[in-house]
């Protein structure tokens, strides 16, 4: 205050007094707003109870559990190969990516490593599921902010990627294709050329979305500076993926972790953004789709020949031990803590899903925001209900 001149100080005090008067005149009772569970912005069934004071949120409480399927309990009565069929359904838009960390954890316990060709194809399918997943996010983002056109582009172009996944694995959404020691099958004929075409289309899609949405003034004013997450808070809450990188943390498990996947064989970069707001999170995801198409393109050139399955016994018994493997999934860090007691099935599996941590920040983040920004923030955090509830 001491920096202000007398005139300014008086003006400041007067404006404060005027504000106080208006607040007294317009004093309203608090109101509780219920959003969901069936709300288009929730990617499933998340319910948010928000206590409002006028247009501002005083506190917000997300209420999960509408889609809890108890996978951690179910894994205990399944054999190891059967678990992939379950974990497919955690993040249903990028299913193949869910299988990989679990299979890698089982392989780690068994001391098996998939052949080079299988690792390459795994990485390609992993990135394809990321592209399919984030493409839908980019389209949905528009709908949630009031622009309907992008979602048609997104659904149109995502179909190309899903066709590729279906062609290779037999399932559009739930491939169930990863096996301990490799993959169920080799790639079908023509897959490589077709994928190259689709990657071109996806890059074009990114350009379209960038021009349609990210350059749009309304979009920018609705996302810039909204829902800022500082870096330390993001780390404390265990946020991961694009949400973390949008807060300026240069950390990507694909690059920083040594796993039997082919990321170290290609040239790509990790995208970060210093702002930490909703715009940054959306922008990082858009750029990551572009990077993913580059990764896939390069991997297609270098697929080594050879088998796609290592020698593993037909009846799989996993030796005693504990293993943790996490990968950089479309939504963030997804990991499995697998405890085996030498049985055919796991003794305990802790599924650490990305959205659970990403969305646990909302009570903190939604405090003090305006009602329309709730939707912006939820859209930009990007969660999938199956990934929260498991």
């Amino acid at each position: 205050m001491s920096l202000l001149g007398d005139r300014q100080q008086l003006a400041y005090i007067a404006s404060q007094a005027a504000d106080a008067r208006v607040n007294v005149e317009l004093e309203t009772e608090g109101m509780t707003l219920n959003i969901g569970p069936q709300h288009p912005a929730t990617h499933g069934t998340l319910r948010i109870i928000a206590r409002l004071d006028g247009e501002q949120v005083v506190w917000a409480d997300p209420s999960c559990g509408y889609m809890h399927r108890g996978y951690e309990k179910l894994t205990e009565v399944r054999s190891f190969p059967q678990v992939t069929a379950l974990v497919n359904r955690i993040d249903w838009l990028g299913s193949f990516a869910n299988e990989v960390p679990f299979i890698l954890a089982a392989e780690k316990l068994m001391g098996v490593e998939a052949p080079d060709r299988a690792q390459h194809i795994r990485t390609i399918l992993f990135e394809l599921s990321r592209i399919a997943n984030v493409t839908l996010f980019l389209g949905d983002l528009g709908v949630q902010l009031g622009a309907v056109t992008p979602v048609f582009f997104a659904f149109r172009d995502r179909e190309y990627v899903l066709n590729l996944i279906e062609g290779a694995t037999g399932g559009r959404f739930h491939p169930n294709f990863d096996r301990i020691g490799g993959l169920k099958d080799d790639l079908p004929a023509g897959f490589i050329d077709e994928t190259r075409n689709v990657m071109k289309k996806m890059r074009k899609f990114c350009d379209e979305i960038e021009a349609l949405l990210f350059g749009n003034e309304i979009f920018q004013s609705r996302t810039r500076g909204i829902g800022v997450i500082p870096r330390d808070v993001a780390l404390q809450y265990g946020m991961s993926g694009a949400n973390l990188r949008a807060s300026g943390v240069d950390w990507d498990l694909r690059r920083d972790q040594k796993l039997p996947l082919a990321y170290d064989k290609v040239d790509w970069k990790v995208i970060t953004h210093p702002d930490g707001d909703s715009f940054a999170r959306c922008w990082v995801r858009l750029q990551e789709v572009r990077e993913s198409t580059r990764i896939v393109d390069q991997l297609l050139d270098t697929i080594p020949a050879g088998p796609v399955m290592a020698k593993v016994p037909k009846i799989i018994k996993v030796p005693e031990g504990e293993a943790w493997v996490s990968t950089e999934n479309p939504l963030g860090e997804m990991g499995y803590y697998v405890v085996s007691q030498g049985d055919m099935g796991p003794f305990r599996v802790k599924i650490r899903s990305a959205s659970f941590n990403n969305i646990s920040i909302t009570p903190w983040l939604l405090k003090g925001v305006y009602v329309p920004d709730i939707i912006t923030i939820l859209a930009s955090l990007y969660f999938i209900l199956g990934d929260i509830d498991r």
Partner: protein
Amino acid sequence: MSSTTDTTTDAPRDDIRDAEIARVLAALGTSVVDSLVKPNDDMWIRVSADAWVSTGETLKSLGYSYFCFISAIDWLPSPFGKGEEDPASPIERSTVIKQGYTGGETRFQVIARLVQPFSTLGINIKVDVDDTVMAIDSWVHVFAGANWHERETHEMFGIGFNGHPDLRNMYLPTDFEGHPLRKDFPLLARHVKPWPGIVDVEPLPGDDSEEEGAES
């Protein structure tokens, strides 16, 4: 991506993690009951229950500032097995508790994982939960993200967290009885109807011995 740590001798060595665990043990002192390093894989420590919160604080100050998860493990062997046999004639099962890495004395253990950002050096921290108390201190004030994880652990295992602001159920109805992830909580679907997947285990006609590798 660099493979400078690849000094292949007879026993696998991991200088980075060995040095790291020494640093952690020096900082934590006597609160660590046991520790384990698996070369080029991961680190485990087990701490005493009264040092649970201070362990979190110390590790955070040592650079483990990324909170990954908190959960629990029920080490009791399931009295129901996989629920694949006839419920009318139950099999007698062993109830001997076989603990995992870094051992333990109790049936329930809480496990947490913290990671050093950028280095991806992670550490798994286990703590025994006394069967009579069934509660440990909460990490909420150390890592804000522990809030939901502790709520989940509380409803799934019935483990309390002292100092947690709000241990409501996350998934289950408020009046739900029992703790589903405990091993003695039956998976009802397996009790009301025999598991149809059991037929998959029987060898198919024309199948060879089990040692044969799968098709390539």
